[in-house]
């Protein structure tokens, strides 16, 4: 971990008074210029991790550290969060329709956010909106800025939302399932755009359930299971030689698009633990094929080559 880390989460733990432990040891590092895929199945805590970085997680006891460019976010006051969200880190969601106000024009909404954070005149802000929309690949940006959200297609709305998120030049863009609601051909367009943004504008945390999306857009990946980061590292390394039995099983369960068709897909039996009934040892142990006695203790998340993995097999 060099000193270049933009965002570094260490042992982040979120305990909800009723639901139980939602995050239980999330450690990850995002360096400038990286696109980090945060991948996991429903309920693994991947969206919560993104929300925590913006201080938007549900009320509960949050422990651990969240270092962003040298500052610990866990000690932020409400006022500090206001200057942080949208300005230094911004988030986009799966459904851009609900992120925009339906009764105001797209351009006006982006303009509002710019003027909230930056000392620009209305005219300067408008020029910035148009140039942003253009950079996001929106055709005829002046005209599109005058449209209402429902007048745009899903793909264009997602581009407009990315433009809004990037409007104040944040250093970090958190994208939560940005392509899940889109058709594959449009998804491919947005993934190309996100890669350009990662190379040009901001570091990206891409939250997704789709290993294929991670493979094509991310430089690094952190795999979450039941609120725990169980493996992380550069994308090629993780895809080529996954170390954790869960990562291995997850990759095997994806139906292939070429080569021989398997008679049966390998599956992971059972289901992830509920937040209020978590195993005290390794969280994956109840479903793991290589489980052994040592798994009763929570494995340490440690480096192995260029991976980091939490499994006794690599202790």
């Amino acid at each position, binding site marked *: 971990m060099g000193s270049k880390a933009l965002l570094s989460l260490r042992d982040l733990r979120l305990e909800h008074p009723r639901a139980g432990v939602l995050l239980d040891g999330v450690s990850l590092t995002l360096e400038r210029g990286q696109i980090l895929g945060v991948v996991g*199945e429903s309920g693994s805590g991947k969206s919560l991790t993104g929300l925590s970085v913006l201080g938007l997680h549900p009320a509960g006891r949050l422990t651990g550290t969240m270092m962003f460019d040298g500052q610990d976010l866990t000690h932020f006051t409400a006022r500090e969060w206001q200057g942080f969200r949208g300005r230094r880190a911004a988030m986009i969601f799966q459904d851009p329709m609900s992120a925009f106000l339906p009764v105001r024009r797209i351009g006006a909404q982006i303009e509002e956010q710019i003027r909230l954070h930056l000392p620009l005149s209305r005219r300067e802000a408008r020029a910035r909106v148009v140039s942003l929309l253009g950079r996001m690949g929106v055709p005829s940006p002046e005209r599109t800025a005058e449209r209402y959200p429902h007048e745009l297609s899903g793909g264009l709305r997602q581009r407009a939302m990315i433009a809004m998120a990037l409007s104040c030049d944040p250093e970090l863009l958190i994208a939560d399932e940005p392509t899940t609601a889109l058709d*594959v051909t*449009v998804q*491919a*367009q947005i993934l190309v755009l996100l890669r350009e943004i990662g190379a040009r504008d901001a570091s990206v945390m891409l939250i997704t359930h*789709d290993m294929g*999306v991670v*493979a094509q857009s991310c430089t690094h990946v952190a795999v979450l299971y039941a609120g725990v980061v169980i493996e992380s590292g550069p994308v090629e390394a993780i895809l080529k030689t996954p170390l954790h039995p869960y990562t291995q099983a997850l990759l095997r369960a994806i139906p292939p698009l070429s080569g021989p068709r398997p008679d049966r897909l390998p599956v992971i039996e059972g*289901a992830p633990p509920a937040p209020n009934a978590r195993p005290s040892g390794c969280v994956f142990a109840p479903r793991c094929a290589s489980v052994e006695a040592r798994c009763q203790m929570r494995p340490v998340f440690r480096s192995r080559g260029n991976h980091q993995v939490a499994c006794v097999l690599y202790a």
Partner: protein
Amino acid sequence: MTMLLQANELARTYTVGSGGKLRAVDDVSLALARGEALALVGESGCGKSTLGRLLMGFDRPDRGQVIFEGQDLATLSTKAMRVLRGRLQMVFQDSGSAFNPRWTIGQALAEPFRIHKRPWSRQSLTALLERVGLSPAFYDRYPAALSGGQRQRLNIARAIALAPQLIVADEPVSALDVSVQAQIINLLRDLQADLDLACLFISHDLAVVRQIADRMAVMYLGGIVEEGETLSVLAVPFHPYTRALVDAVPQPGKPLGAPLQGDVPSPLSPPPGCRFHTRCPIAQPRCAAERPALIHVGDGRKVACHYPLAS
């Protein structure tokens, strides 16, 4: 060979609020043999779900006919249609809204038997639960006790309860996580083989389609643009749209190609000529003027393109 299900030149147009005509399905012919698994593939708005509804008899086509086991669905009385329904079942994507939350799982499973006045027993229903990999202990519990994957299993159990010949499954696994999705795909394949069940899968996910369907038909703006054996279509697509769909699927170890530009045109005003020519990377002047017909090109493959990609 007589076909189990046959659709001849189906067309369905909806009139939308402003008086516009939305051609959801435009001149589609399709056939499904006994025990065969066929997938309808396409992006949102291509008409695949409407076609599924027409084939189920939920909606009547404006033109063309749907023939199931030699009977034209349009000529059947409500009563005759009701009898047929037992042999023609549907599975939807959202298993959460498919069950009455106040009925026990046993009651939900007994419903098809009750409607069709067939005998059932607790024993036969628990056997059905086990058939789809659910514990008989769920019999007296409520759907809320089930996870998403388990609910989809229950949904499938109810669809196969009356031993149908055909199941139409609209995006049966797209709401599920990868590991659960694999379980349901395996289950569907097992049932299909064991019960000699014909299946029509409606899906946008090519990797899933490759795993469960023998044959596939690709739809774009209400029409079929390519049809053939799944493995062969996905390995060597002839239509440029199929090619673009295959290339757009993000996969480990494969660089992302240049994506198709633009969006699917509105079905309210589909382009003249070939419906795909506005986004096609190899379009020629002829494509804007003349609509290509879906023609046989050998090996059971069909394609609707003036300039099909060379193999």
